[in-house]
């Protein structure tokens, strides 16, 4: 059973690692396909690529053989009454993209250049599943009209079953074209989520392409002038779209399940050795009766093979459950274009490991049968004592099990400590009793700003009156919220400076700081009239004040902030200073100052409500309020800010949970191994304990001796595990937060847990040894 679990876990994780990281994608020469992205330092997410940069890459990059852009979107589906019925993932793609991927339609045609001309009819290509859903697979779907997101499209084609890009959930592809204005170099610094797929020329590595792309970006003055060295271009294999930041977690999981497999294999080998030793007498008798060594070896091999085959079969049976578990813990993304599961390399690895384990087990069986037959027969089954080699092997296996378990538990320990330290970080505001609600969908797309402002104003006013709500605030950038807005600003007193730094551009109402529980360190908050009038005032954070005024007073000082590519900068007067808040992650070190401006209904507005009761209890009333104000819309999401913060650690939490599961398994296996070794040693030494007792030993002295034996094994395992634990923690160093790779507290805790579990495992055999009846023990001699 344990072996099956170990094989299952290893096969499952290896299958996902291979499938996600190494298996060829189902596209033409997929190893040459790359994704080109850009990053602006200080903005912690992908900005996509601007259209002029995409154009320059397509024209001038010698390392690339084809470039195509795409955007993803999720459109709201509505019934005839305008009510939301669901969502559909769509992708706008340039016609060249399908060609780059080597895709062919199952029905109809792909996009052509004329589909993206200004006057082209709106065309769409359906995924196989969407075709089935909308047209039940009817061949006459081509040319028919469909309505998506309020617009009508003509179906041009259907993609084959299984085709997926950029996600398996993408149901519809729409043509992507750019206007002449978007192609202009002046828009080189405008990013709107456009992503680019390219094909490397034969023999070109992504790193070379990245170097060339960076130099091309540098050669665009409009881009270089706006961001300078803060602008980076990355070229990654296409699979990075789906792998995301899972690579490290997956490799860690593979390492952890490999360790558990080794612990299990050691355990099984140990138990087999014990069984073989117990059956030595029988084997000797069989040999004496004429069984040839080959025949005895075959019997041992058959027994080992049966065990391994059973383990492998059980492992395969558990694969679907394991894969579902990994998907649940987000180590396996849902939308990969390639199928992930049992592949030939996974089968080969498991078969190889099974054969190797089988060989070891068979060898164990054969090796203990060697020796003086007469002696083995004379000494009888009950008195079999293992040779020094076999005993040493058993002890070594247990010590190795304990050492691996120490490493695994230590790794889990430092990860848990890191998560704990992160959760304890000061975020700059009172994080408890806060509810966060995104108001993007309070009005339909394209609604008039007046409607939006009216609805937001009504919602904020009525939310303040909800029972249990003590304060309500509004802002475009709530800490740990969904949106981020940045603007360039002219630092005070540096009006002629060429470089304009970037700051968080926060628009807030008068209740924002009170709701968040952010203290005003100097000056004052905005008044309601100032918010209504969008007065040219600013509240800045400590980072801004320290950076630009040092120890001087920021209040009453002026500076200018950008408002858009074609609009003049706005001059603001500083009226207050607040603490610097964590925005996206608990581990972040503030490197970008915040500028707060008054606004009664900012774009991407989110509502913050401070509650006197459990904030989760306000979710339903707030949702109902939203439904009253905008019956056809929805406030989504509404979550507690504590949950949002915990979500930023979700990948850690999930990995911790999985590793914890593996650690507990390893601990259990090590305890079983320790128990088995000691129980067997006690059984072998019953006559010896009888002698000890006959010589005057007290039962507790025997008990202590056996416990001491166990403790020595635990101690040796701990000593051997220490360097392994250190190495493992070093591998985790990117995930450690304020915890050393040799954290003494964690090490102490691991040693204590292991010693406690180990002693519990030793207790029963030790007690049995202390209760040996010397008369019985010596009579059996």
């Amino acid at each position, binding site marked *: 059973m344990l072996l099956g679990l170990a094989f299952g876990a290893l096969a499952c994780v290896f299958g996902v690692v291979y499938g996600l990281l190494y298996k060829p994608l189902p596209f033409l020469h997929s190893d040459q396909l790359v994704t080109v992205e850009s990053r602006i330092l200080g903005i912690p997410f992908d900005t996509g690529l601007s259209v002029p940069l995409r154009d320059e890459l397509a024209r001038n990059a010698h390392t690339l053989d084809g470039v195509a852009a795409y955007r993803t979107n999720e459109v709201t589906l509505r019934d005839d009454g305008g009510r939301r019925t669901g969502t559909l993932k769509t992708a706008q793609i340039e016609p060249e993209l399908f060609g780059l991927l080597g895709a062919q339609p199952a029905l109809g045609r792909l996009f052509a250049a004329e589909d993206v001309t200004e006057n082209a009819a709106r065309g769409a290509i359906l995924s196989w599943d969407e075709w089935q859903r909308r047209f039940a697979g009817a061949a006459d779907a081509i040319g028919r009209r469909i309505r998506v997101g309020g617009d009508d499209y003509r179906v041009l084609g259907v993609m084959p079953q299984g085709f997926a890009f950029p996600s398996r959930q993408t149901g519809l592809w729409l043509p992507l074209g750019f206007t002449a204005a978007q192609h202009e170099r002046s828009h080189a610094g405008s990013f709107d989520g456009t992503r680019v797929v390219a094909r490397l020329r034969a023999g070109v590595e992504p790193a070379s392409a990245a170097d060339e792309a960076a130099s091309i970006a540098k050669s665009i003055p409009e881009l270089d002038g706006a961001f300078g060295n803060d602008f980076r271009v990355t070229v990654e294999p296409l699979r990075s779209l789906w792998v995301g930041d899972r690579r490290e977690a997956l490799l860690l999981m593979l390492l952890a399940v490999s360790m558990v497999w080794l612990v299990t294999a050691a355990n099984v080998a140990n138990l087999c050795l014990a069984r073989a030793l117990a059956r030595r007498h029988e084997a000797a008798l069989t040999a004496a009766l004429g069984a040839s060594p080959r025949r005895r070896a075959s019997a041992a091999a058959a027994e080992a093979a049966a065990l391994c085959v059973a383990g492998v079969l059980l492992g395969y049976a558990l694969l679907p459950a394991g894969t579902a578990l990994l998907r649940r813990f987000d180590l396996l993304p849902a939308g990969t274009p390639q199928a992930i599961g049992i592949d030939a390399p996974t089968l080969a690895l498991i078969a190889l490991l099974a054969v190797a384990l089988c060989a070891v087990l068979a060898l164990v069986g054969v090796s203990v049968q060697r020796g003086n037959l007469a002696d083995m027969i004379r000494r009888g089954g009950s008195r079999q004592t293992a040779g020094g080699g076999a005993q040493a092997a058993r002890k070594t296996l247990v010590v190795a099990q304990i050492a691996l378990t120490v490493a695994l538990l230590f790794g889990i320990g430092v990860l848990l400590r890191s998560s704990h330290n992160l959760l304890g970080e000061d975020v700059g505001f009172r994080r408890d009793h806060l509810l966060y609600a995104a108001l993007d969908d309070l009005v339909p797309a394209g609604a008039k700003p007046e409607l939006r402002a009216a609805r937001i104003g009504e919602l904020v006013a009525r939310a303040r009156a909800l029972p249990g709500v003590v304060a309500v605030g509004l802002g475009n950038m709530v800490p740990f919220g969904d949106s981020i807005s940045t603007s360039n600003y002219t630092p005070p007193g540096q009006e002629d400076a060429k470089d304009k730094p970037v700051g968080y551009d926060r628009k807030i109402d008068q209740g924002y700081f009170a709701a968040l529980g952010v203290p005003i360190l100097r000056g004052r908050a905005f008044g309601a009239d100032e918010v209504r009038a969008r007065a040219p005032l600013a509240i800045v954070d400590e980072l801004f004040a320290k950076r630009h005024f040092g120890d001087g007073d920021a209040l009453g000082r002026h500076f200018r902030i950008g408002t858009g590519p074609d609009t003049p900068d706005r001059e603001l007067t500083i009226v207050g200073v607040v603490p610097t808040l964590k925005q996206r992650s608990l581990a972040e070190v503030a490197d970008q100052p915040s500028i707060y401006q008054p606004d009664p209904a900012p774009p991407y507005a989110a509502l913050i409500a401070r509650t006197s009761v459990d904030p989760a209890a306000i979710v339903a009333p707030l949702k109902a309020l939203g439904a009253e104000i905008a019956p056809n819309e929805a406030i989504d999401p509404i979550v507690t800010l504590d949950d949002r913060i915990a979500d930023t650690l979700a990948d850690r939490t999930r990995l911790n949970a999985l590793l914890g599961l593996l650690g507990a398994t390893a601990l259990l296996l090590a305890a079983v191994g320790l128990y088995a070794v000691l129980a067997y040693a006690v059984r072998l030494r019953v006559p010896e304990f009888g002698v*000890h*007792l006959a*010589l*005057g030993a007290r039962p507790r002295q025997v008990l202590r001796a056996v416990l001491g034996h166990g403790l020595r094994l635990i101690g040796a395992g701990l000593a051997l595990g220490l360097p392994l634990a250190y190495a493992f923690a070093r591998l985790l160093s990117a995930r450690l937060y304020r915890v050393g790779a040799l954290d003494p507290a964690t090490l102490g805790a691991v040693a204590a847990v292991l010693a406690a579990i180990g002693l519990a495992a030793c207790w029963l055999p030790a007690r049995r040894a202390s209760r040996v009846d010397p008369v019985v023990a*010596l009579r059996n001699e």
Partner: protein
Amino acid sequence: MAIIELRGIEKSFPLAGGRSWVLRNVDLDVGDGEFVSVMGPSGAGKSSLLNVLGLMDHDWQGAYSLDGVAVDKLAAKQRQALQREKIGFIFQHYHLIDELKVWENLDLPLQYRDVPAKERAARVADLLDRFQIVGKKDLYPNQLSGGQQQLVAVARAVITRPRLLLADEPTGALHSTQARTIMDLLHELHRDGITIVQVTHNEAFAREADRVIRLADGWIEKPARV
């Protein structure tokens, strides 16, 4: 004065439809400093009698006084303490501890009696010298011959200076020369005043004792003076 006084000792095991008797109404006195041999066919109850005498078995009926202490009235811990104080054992198969060197085997009973380390070392050295096995002190039991192992086992039995030495077929696993050496050693210990009860199948060695007791089906056949 008798160091051992057994009165009406009976020992049996329950069996389907009855009991299997091992010792039947055994009355036996062994004088202080006496050397007694116990003989009898296999299954006669010799080893069972020795276990009762050695306080290793307490599942019997009757009265047993060891050096004036009524054993049958003692609690388990008191019995163990009395055993540690008065009794030494020699086994047919030596039962030395394989993982311990010769000197460590000798040291072991002293450790169990909480003898201070310094005194233990002195006693071990004394006995190694007396038994002429100083040269073997750092060897492990499996590096010794059977006779040498039994020599060490006898040394181990007497290192605690017991009043009573119980030997269960001490020469049973040895060839004649080695057996002779062990018997000579027992005589020497006897001369030093130790009371010895040995179980043996060897008629000649049995007769070397002061007295031979013969057991059959759990009964003492007849006491005989040699």
